[in-house]
Every structure is written in structure tokens, then in C-alpha cells.
């Protein structure tokens, strides 16, 4: 894990100084984060990066985890799916199990923060402790796409949410009408991680050699797990339209979960559609192969993300960071990252994707310019240091209701 000072090589020392200045305004405040797990999952991963950096900046930031048994987490998993819009059968007994475990956590968990950040629905009922903590500020941090939630679950959670001082969402599209303040904190990538750091050319070449990918033909790449929503077959169709005019290669790389039968089926279908085209490389990359993913992205001529549905689309962020020209579907968080024709090309169909790829392959200067703009956009907006800045500003916002705040 990199130290805060190491990020100055990426974003400049003035940005780090700005963070230190903001952190100084939070002297004496204790920030307590609470979620449902210390390991595994995006929230735990995010907190494991953010909490030490905030501490290093001098903000007294802590992280605690609620307890819960199988029945509790079964219900919260169902909540999670239902908030994503998937129909779920949730019985009154299940709601009861949620309430029971929540009460145990309310009774047993020590809440001590001046600022309480409660992550996702599992610990949401802890807000009941607010009454016994006068002066404390509470924010509910929702990491889930709740743009079309199941109303049954949403209506159950709403009375809890309304008691918070504010809510935080990861996309403007997730923002519901609420009587409390809502803030936007977009996801970010860590430029110093194995997946995003600069790589020596030898490392990139070694990965290409390992997978027998040629360097003398343009490479079109989509990185994502094998999932119908990522439309790998649509990507192959787009590639075939491009291939009619330009001799190129296609890489489809990502994880396949062995315990997910659908993922294995998508992988098999994709292989079948690819047939015996030796220029199509379908690569099941095991989890933890961050350097390989990094190398494949850096070796690519064009990166594609032809998802039918998408969360934020961090693979797009990663590609933009590597200054690659990107063609991506206008869905989920992708339009937040790509301004069409400014730093990438948005598409809505196989034909649109193919046309955009051809334009980029035929106009390398244009592609280069889009890539450079993409890199700068990520540097300004989607780097971990911006995430830290947003966290600090959020904490400060809890004490300032105005639109312009002179610190």
C-alpha cells in the first residue's frame, strides 16, 4: 500500500498539500466507518485503502464491522439484489431476522465517532444510536445501484435513511428523491496499484508472448468477466465487421467464476462463436492477475467496453488512465467518464461500435488525442486522491449547510 506522499508523483504536490490543508480542518474529529465485512467485496477493499490514507493525513479515522449470522446475511443479500432491481421473495420472517440482528448490533457495537459513516444496507439500522450521541453526524454511504429498486425493500429501508443527516451515492443516476442532503462520490482507481501502475515494455511483451498475441497487428481488447451483460458476443460481431476492412486481433480477457454456472456457459458460448479464428484470443484470467490485465490493456490499440448494463465501469477508467482510445456503450457510469468525441467514443450497437473502432484504427492521431484527453480526465477526476478529497469535503459538509464555505 502506497504512502500519501507517493501520489504526488501522479497528481502533483499541490494536490497533496490541498488534502493536508483540508485534513487540518478536521482536527479533533473522530470518523467511524461501519460496514458488514472486513475482507472481501468492494467496500472492504475501498476502506482498506482509504482509511490508512486518511489516518496518514491526520484524520482520526476508524473502521468497525457489525456482526451477523447466516440468516441475517441471507436477508441482506436479498436486499442487495432487490435494490439492484432483481425480484426477490422476502418473507416477514426475513425482515424480522434483519431487525433482530440489527438490534443486537445496536446494543453491542460501540459507536464513538463524531462523524459516523454507515456503508450499505446491512448496518443501516445503527442510525437508532444517533439519539444517544448528541452532536454526532451520520451519513449513509450507498455503494449499490438503486436506480430502479424493488419498492418493497426500498420502502422498508426509507424510514432508516430519512433519519440520517445525509446520504452518499456513486452516480447521479442512483439519486432518489430524499428529504436529506445527498452527495455524489464517484468511484476511483489507484494509479499505483499493480493493475494501473506503469509497466516496463518487457513485462508487456512477456504477457503478449505468453498468450501468443502478435505485435504487428492492431489489438482490440475488452476486459471484463464472462457475463452476458458485458456482451462478449456483440464484441466479436463488432470485431468481425472491423476485420472485413482492417486486419486486426481481438482479446476478450476476464475472470470466470468456477462456482457461477452462467459465467462458464458465457465463456463456452463465446469460444464457440469465436470458432477457429486464430486472431481472437479468449483468455480466462484468474483473479489476482492484475499485472497481466494491466499489460493487456497497455498493449491494446483500442479498448472496447460494449456492456449492455454497467455499474460505474472501472475497466473503462483503467483504460482511459492508460491513455487508450476507448469505444464504450452509453450505459451506467460510462457516460460520466466519456464525453463523446472528447475523450472517447460512445456507442449503442454492434454497428456503432464497429464504426468507431474503424475510425480510431484509421486515424491514429485522433485516437491518440482522445487517449491523452482520457488520461487527463481520469487524473483530474477518478484517482484515489480525488476520492480522499471528496471524503474530507463530505466530513466538512456535515458541519456546514451552505453552498459556499470559507474555511
Amino acid at each position, binding site marked *: 500500500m502506497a504512502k500519501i506522499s507517493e501520489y504526488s508523483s501522479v497528481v502533483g504536490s*499541490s*494536490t497533496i498539500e*490541498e488534502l493536508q*490543508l*483540508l485534513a487540518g*480542518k478536521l482536527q479533533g474529529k473522530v470518523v467511524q466507518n461501519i460496514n458488514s465485512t472486513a475482507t472481501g467485496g468492494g467496500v472492504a477493499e475501498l476502506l482498506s485503502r482509504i482509511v490508512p490514507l486518511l489516518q496518514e493525513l491526520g484524520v482520526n479515522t476508524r473502521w468497525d464491522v457489525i456482526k451477523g449470522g447466516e440468516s441475517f446475511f441471507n436477508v441482506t443479500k436479498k436486499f442487495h439484489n432487490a435494490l439492484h432491481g432483481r425480484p426477490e421473495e422476502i418473507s416477514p420472517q426475513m425482515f424480522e431476522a434483519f431487525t433482530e440482528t440489527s438490534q443486537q448490533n445496536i446494543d453491542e457495537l460501540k459507536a464513538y465517532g463524531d462523524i459516523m459513516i454507515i456503508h450499505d444496507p446491512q448496518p443501516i439500522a445503527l442510525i437508532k444510536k444517533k439519539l444517544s450521541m448528541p452532536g454526532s453526524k451520520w451519513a449513509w454511504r450507498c455503494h449499490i445501484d438503486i*436506480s*430502479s429498486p424493488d419498492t418493497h425493500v426500498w420502502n422498508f429501508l426509507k424510514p432508516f435513511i430519512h433519519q440520517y443527516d445525509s446520504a452518499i*451515492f456513486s452516480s*447521479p*443516476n442512483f*439519486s*432518489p*428523491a*430524499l428529504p436529506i*442532503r*445527498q*452527495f*455524489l462520490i464517484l468511484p476511483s482507481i489507484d494509479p499505483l496499484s499493480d493493475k494501473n501502475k506503469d509497466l516496463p515494455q518487457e513485462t508487456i511483451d512477456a504477457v503478449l508472448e505468453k498468450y501468443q498475441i502478435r505485435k504487428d497487428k492492431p489489438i482490440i481488447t475488452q476486459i471484463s468477466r464472462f457475463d452476458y451483460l458485458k456482451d462478449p458476443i456483440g464484441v466479436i460481431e463488432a470485431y468481425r465487421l472491423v476485420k472485413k476492412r482492417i486486419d486486426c486481433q481481438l482479446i476478450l480477457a476476464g475472470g470466470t467464476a468456477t462456482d457461477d454456472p452462467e459465467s462458464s456457459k458465457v465463456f463456452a458460448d463465446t469460444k464457440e462463436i469465436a470458432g477457429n479464428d486464430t486472431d481472437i484470443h479468449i483468455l480466462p484470467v484468474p483473479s489476482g492477475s492484475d499485472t497481466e490485465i494491466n499489460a493487456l490493456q497497455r498493449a491494446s490499440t483500442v479498448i472496447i467496453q460494449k456492456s449492455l448494463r454497467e455499474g460505474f465501469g472501472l475497466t473503462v477508467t483503467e483504460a482511459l488512465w492508460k491513455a487508450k482510445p476507448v469505444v464504450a456503450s*452509453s*450505459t*451506467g457510469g460510462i*457516460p460520466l467518464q466519456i*464525453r*463523446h468525441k*472528447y*475523450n472517447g467514443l*460512445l456507442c449503442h450497437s454492434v454497428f456503432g461500435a464497429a464504426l468507431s473502432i474503424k475510425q480510431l484504427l484509421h486515424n491514429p492521431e485522433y485516437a491518440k488525442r482522445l487517449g491523452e*484527453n482520457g488520461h*487527463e*480526465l481520469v487524473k*483530474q*477526476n477518478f484517482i484515489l486522491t480525488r476520492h480522499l*478529497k*471528496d471524503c474530507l*469535503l*463530505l466530513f*466538512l*459538509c456535515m458541519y*456546514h449547510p*451552505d*453552498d*459556499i*464555505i*470559507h*474555511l
Partner: protein
Amino acid sequence: MNVLGKAKEPFIFSTQVSLTELTGLKATNLQQLLDLIKTVPGSIIYHHTHHFLQEHQYLLPEPPNDFAYWVTEFLGEARLGEYLLSIDTIQYTTIRELRDKIARTIEDYVKDYPTSLNKFATTGEEFRFLKSVSFVLQTPHKASDLKEFKTALQKVTPGSLYFHMFEARLRIRQGINDFSKWLEDCLSENKLANKIAALDPYTYTLENLRFTIIKLVEKRIAESLKEHPVIPEALPK
């Protein structure tokens, strides 16, 4: 005035950082967009006409407002997009005036092209109204004469430049940028103040704006040195 002359009061550089507040408000067609533009708080109009400047600091400065981008890309109304794009933001000294101009532009367009009201953005592509919460902090950088001013301009963050040129003019002082005000009031550098005030900062990237202001200051320093050459003191015999 001699460039070595000291200002009545030093210029203290501040910087500005902001957090985006969500409102839950959205528009799917031109009528909804127009109705909300007319009624939402000024901080929302400010966000959608200014956040691009800070988020895209090194890019070409287009498109300068989200309304133009959305009607073009998601409603397919390129002509209206161009009208909104070409609103000369620098002309307006208050958010209220800017808001009125944007609303009038859409109203006029809808009158001329009533079928434009029938176009709807698809789910996920609605216009989401957002708001900027700005935090202003003092930096350690300050200047008491033109040379120090130039040196500090080279060092401060883009957020600082943004604050003194945009936020101060439109949201705080309403009418003039901080640099011109200080140059005029504290250094009597009226000509230089006017030159900076006459720039259209909306058509520069922040880095190009920084470069342009520094060039103007350098030019003034060179002129001043010509008018008032620094004569080395005579050596004692």
C-alpha cells in the same frame, strides 16, 4: 508605476475545492429541463455551467455547459445545443442573468421547433440536476508587487486560479475577477487590470489561462522596467 512598488495590501491567494451535491431532480425532455432551470437554486445552474472548467483542466474547453451537451447528445437537438454552447457566459455578472438567458434560449427554440418537445432521453440518460458545494481555503502564497504576483501565479493550484477568476467574479463579488480588482485597487495597475478583465476565461483551459495572465504580467513588468530603468547604485569611491 514602478514594478518594484509595493501594493497597499498584499494579494493573498485562496484555493477552491468542491463537492457535488445530488438533488434527485431530473429531466427527460426539453419542457422538464426548462421548468427546472427556471426554479432550481442558483448553485445548480452554477454547477452545470462551470464544473466542466475544473474537471477538464487540460482539455479543449468545450463544451462549457452541461445543458448544451445533453440536448445535443441525448435529445439530438444539435441546433439548440449550439445556441446554448454559444451563450457568452462572461457577459453575465450574476447567476440569475445567466439562468434567464439559458431559459430564454430554450423557450425561443421550443417556439420555433415545437416538435423538439416530443423527444425524450432514454432511462439512464436523463439530465440529472447537481449542485456544487464550494470550499474556499487560504493558501500560503501571497504577492506584494508584480514580480511576486507572477511567481505565485506560476505556483498556485488550478483550483486557486479558478477561484479568483471564475467563482469570485460570479458567485462572490459579482462582476470582476479578484486579480483585476487587486491590481487596480492596490497597485494602480489599471491597464493590466483591464486587460485581464477583458479576457474571456471560458474559452481557455485553466492552464492556458494561467499562461496568458502570466504573459500579460511579464509584458507589463518589461514595459515598467523600460519606463523606470533600475539604475545600479554608484560604487563608493
